């Protein structure tokens, strides 16, 4: 079809004539529905409800865990558009594309609408009363140790209720699992600074040196960092900030950097220590630790030229304060903790702690603080499941059957549980394995509170989630409401005053009114003001950072040796839209092009043009990526922004469930990851997998937005044509 002689001009001509034909023949009032369409009025309307006039409510975005506050436009009882809430210090009125797509989570046609009980291969619709009774029956005579609850990151009053519920059994098995959270960096920060997540003042730095932290795309709190980045580029005292990105595969942040340095995968820590050595600013045990990392060796190990190291050192000396970030590309190795520690050490040596890395405010209610976790938690659950420790297991907000490597055998281990309950919005891969599926309200229908992990403002904040509209489906329930109903089974006396989760939430907030800044205020007034703001701000204690500079226990392995059978590193990249794949069923996200490759609706294999030429691969070739634990097939995309010894496949696609917009689009690289873990923290080393690439002989046309570089461009030579194998991004500044 594409090769046909039917070119663009002809096509437009036909389209034009076709349009005229439609206009001529369609002159009747073709969309008039007099006497046919029903016009539905309100039953009871308040004064502010006027048809065609929007009303705005504040709530909290649930698309990722950054905790941005949202402001939703509601018209005729329907939520139409989400934007950022200006009152939040995190996103200050802005919202990313992922957040905007939240309405498609709410209106998704594939939501679970009724409680489902497994009957063979099928789910049978049951009532909520029966579902609750069934849970009570299955928990009869089961001890606390035999129950497990697996959730995503969780905070606020929902977490309090969940902990109370589990405590009623004496159960301590609440595991939090986030598929792509910075688990290793948290642990390294805890060691270096005394807190897991300090505040990063990108806007106060004159130089940001980021080791694979994609803070503009998906890292920790990207909307907040993007705003800081804007200020950083405008400059401190008129000096425009300089961004240097060190990574093996270009991220969105890397594409925005002044200098992009490609390193051999896994050698980020070596480069950091080499920089400390070259700076010559360290003393004592740090100096002793780094003295072996001379420029020649570092250059040989990392692939970064001596000249570039010199340039970088000169930049670090002339631009203070600077900020060094350790991101997912640095932490994803068996020595990830060491990498992150070396990078944090560089921050300390440069004297950035206290200036661009500072303590964050925290909420003075420890029971509401977020419970975080990463693949280490999942690995321990998986092992315990394998040992048959749990008789009843609950899962909520996670999809480990999709996001755990096949090598972990999570699916098989999960099957060993006697009774599996999934709280779910969609029938995703994990919900399909469950015995009982409980349908949840969407994030725009539910009540809740949450405490963001990354506290961006000077004050701590608790985010309020409130319904923007009525339930779309009569038989979904809020997670808080379900927990309350389950708690009433256990402990009816303590919770009898709360008819629903809303009442509980209101009671709990008003009980602490004084601490939340509502001293002396009327209950109703304070509660309504809080809902209207969408945020509770409170002056929390700011944890100081420990200031010691120490290289204690730092031992980096040598640069990795080549593997003859599996010569390439597999980098599972995190795309700003799809991330870990939990939102893959939102078509806006599927069709908004990847920022770097502009590919839509499908997966791809990024491969360096030189390596591709070596293997005889051209764009669109279906290639097989095979590792020790399976293989995937996807279209090749030649990309100069990647190390020649690495290939990259984006995460998030490749669902085999989760509805019409997710199922069957792309491939899932999670499944072929090797089960190699960081030695210190036990988190999955996501970048440690080695693969080989081979052609399958098929070829497709890659569906993407970009045209050929230096192509026709309407006959004007806007860009000079350069073949991709001639481009060397590491030389460009």
């Amino acid at each position, binding site marked *: 079809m594409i090769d046909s*002689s039917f070119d663009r001009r002809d096509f437009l001509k036909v389209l034009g004539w*076709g349009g005229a*034909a439609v206009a001529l023949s369609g002159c009747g009032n*073709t969309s008039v529905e*007099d006497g*046919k*369409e*029903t016009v539905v009025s309100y*039953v009871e309307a308040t004064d502010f409800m006027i048809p*065609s006039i929007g009303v705005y409510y504040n709530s909290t975005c649930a698309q990722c865990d950054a905790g941005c506050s949202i402001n939703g436009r509601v018209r005729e009882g329907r939520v139409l558009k989400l934007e950022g809430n200006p009152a939040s210090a995190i996103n200050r009125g802005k919202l990313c594309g992922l957040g905007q797509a939240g309405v498609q989570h709410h209106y998704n046609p594939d939501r679970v609408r009724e409680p489902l009980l497994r009957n063979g291969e099928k789910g049978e619709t049951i009532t909520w009363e029966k579902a609750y009774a069934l849970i009570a029956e299955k928990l009869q005579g089961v001890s606390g140790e035999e129950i497990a609850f697996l959730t995503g990151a969780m905070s606020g009053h929902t977490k309090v209720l969940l902990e109370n519920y589990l405590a009623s059994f004496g159960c301590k098995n609440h595991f939090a699992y986030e598929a792509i959270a910075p688990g290793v960096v948290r642990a390294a920060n805890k060691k270096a600074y005394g807190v897991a997540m300090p505040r990063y003042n990108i806007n106060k730095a004159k130089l940001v040196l980021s080791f694979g932290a994609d803070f503009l795309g998906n890292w920790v709190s990207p909307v907040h960092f993007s705003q800081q980045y804007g200020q950083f580029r405008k400059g401190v005292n008129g000096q425009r900030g300089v961004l240097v990105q060190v990574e093996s595969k270009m991220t969105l942040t890397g594409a925005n950097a002044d200098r992009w340095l490609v390193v051999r995968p896994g050698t980020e820590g070596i480069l950091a220590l080499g920089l400390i050595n070259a700076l010559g600013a360290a003393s004592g045990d740090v100096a002793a630790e780094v003295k072996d990392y001379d420029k020649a060796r570092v250059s040989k190990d990392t692939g970064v030229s001596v000249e570039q190291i010199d340039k970088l050192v000169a930049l670090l000396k002339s631009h203070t304060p600077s900020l060094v970030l350790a991101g997912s590309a640095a932490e994803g190795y068996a020595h990830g903790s060491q990498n992150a520690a070396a990078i944090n050490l560089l921050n300390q040596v440069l004297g950035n702690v206290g200036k661009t890395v500072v303590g964050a405010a925290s909420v003075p209610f420890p029971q509401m603080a977020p419970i975080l976790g990463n693949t280490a938690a999942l690995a321990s659950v998986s092992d315990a499941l394998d040992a048959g420790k749990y008789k009843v297991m609950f899962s909520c907000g996670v999809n480990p059957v999709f996001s755990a490597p096949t090598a972990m055998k999570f699916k098989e281990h999960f099957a060993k549980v006697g009774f599996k309950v999934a709280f779910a919005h969609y029938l995703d891969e994990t919900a399909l394995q469950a015995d009982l599926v409980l349908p949840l309200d969407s994030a725009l229908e539910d009540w809740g509170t949450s405490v963001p992990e990354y506290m961006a403002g000077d004050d701590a904040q608790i985010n309020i989630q409130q319904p923007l509209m009525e339930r779309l489906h009569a038989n979904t329930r809020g997670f808080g409401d379900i927990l309350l109903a389950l708690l009433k089974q256990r402990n009816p006396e303590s919770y009898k005053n709360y008819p629903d989760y809303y009442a509980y939430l209101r009671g709990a907030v008003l009980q602490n009114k004084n601490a939340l800044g509502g001293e002396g205020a009327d209950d109703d007034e304070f509660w309504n003001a809080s809902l209207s703001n969408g945020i509770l701000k409170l002056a929390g204690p700011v944890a100081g950072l420990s200031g010691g500079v120490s290289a204690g226990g730092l031992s980096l392995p040598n640069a990795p040796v080549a593997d003859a059978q599996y010569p390439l590193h597999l980098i599972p990249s995190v795309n700003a839209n799809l991330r870990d794949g939990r939102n893959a069923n939102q078509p806006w996200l599927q069709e908004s092009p990847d920022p770097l490759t502009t590919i839509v609706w499908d997966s791809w294999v990024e491969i360096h043009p030189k390596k591709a030429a070596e293997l005889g691969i051209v764009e669109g070739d279906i290639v097989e990526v095979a590792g020790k634990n399976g293989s995937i097939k996807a279209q090749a995309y030649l990309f100069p922004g990647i190390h020649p010894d690495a290939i990259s496949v984006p995460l998030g696609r490749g669902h085999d469930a989760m509805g019409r917009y997710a199922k069957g689009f792309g491939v899932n690289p999670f499944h072929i990851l090797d089960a190699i873990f960081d030695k210190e923290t036990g988190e999955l080393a996501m970048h440690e997998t080695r693969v080989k690439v081979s052609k399958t002989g098929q070829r497709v046309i890659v569906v993407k937005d970009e045209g050929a570089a230096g192509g026709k461009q309407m006959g004007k030579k806007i860009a000079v044509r350069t073949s991709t194998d001639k481009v060397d991004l590491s030389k460009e500044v």
Partner: protein
Amino acid sequence: MHRFLRLSILLVSLFAASSYAADATQAVKMTEDSLGPLVEQPIEFPHFRHAGDVNKEHPEKGGMQINCMYCHTFARRSAVAGIPPLQKCIGCHQSIESVRETPRIKKLFEYWEGSKDGKIAAKSPIPWKKVHDLPDFVRFNHERHIKRFVFQQNRPVQEACGYCHGDVKTMTVARRSKTLSMGFCVDCHKKDHLVSAEGGTAIGNQAYWYGFKKPVVNASMPLTAKGPNDCWQCHK
């Protein structure tokens, strides 16, 4: 050669497809007197009883001259006039005992209290059928027209509404009595309308004419202006 063959096939098929689409959607049949279709409503709402003129001889046959905007309260605030909330009907009718047991009012209360056979749940909206509809590519703003004619010029409400909706106060169930075609709209927008009237709201030296031309002020002539004549005013 092939190229032109392919082009013409595409063209012909497009034409055929579009004509078919146009045929398929013209299902609404106009009645002989070229009024809108007779629409059967869930409740036969007597507009004449509510908005009609008072009949002094037989008060039970006449109307109560209720202002249109008492019920269609959104018309002056929003682009759409809206159907009054059910609450509004009940608000009055719960204290009008004399008609409480008539069939139409009994039906009305079924939507509020729920029907005995359980077919209608309590507090469900009445499924009224649309009587006045415009194509989706036309944007008509009630608020602008009401502000212009009722609040600035003090014209009677029933006259202003009646420009497009006809003499609703004599109808039971409303029926479209104007064509509401583009020609209908343009006819009116072409006319010179007075921009001030006795008792009308002072509107200053701006915004009372809608075209690009400021009206010529001539002390001996009444000040008039035309409605907007730009495509984008309605086709947004």
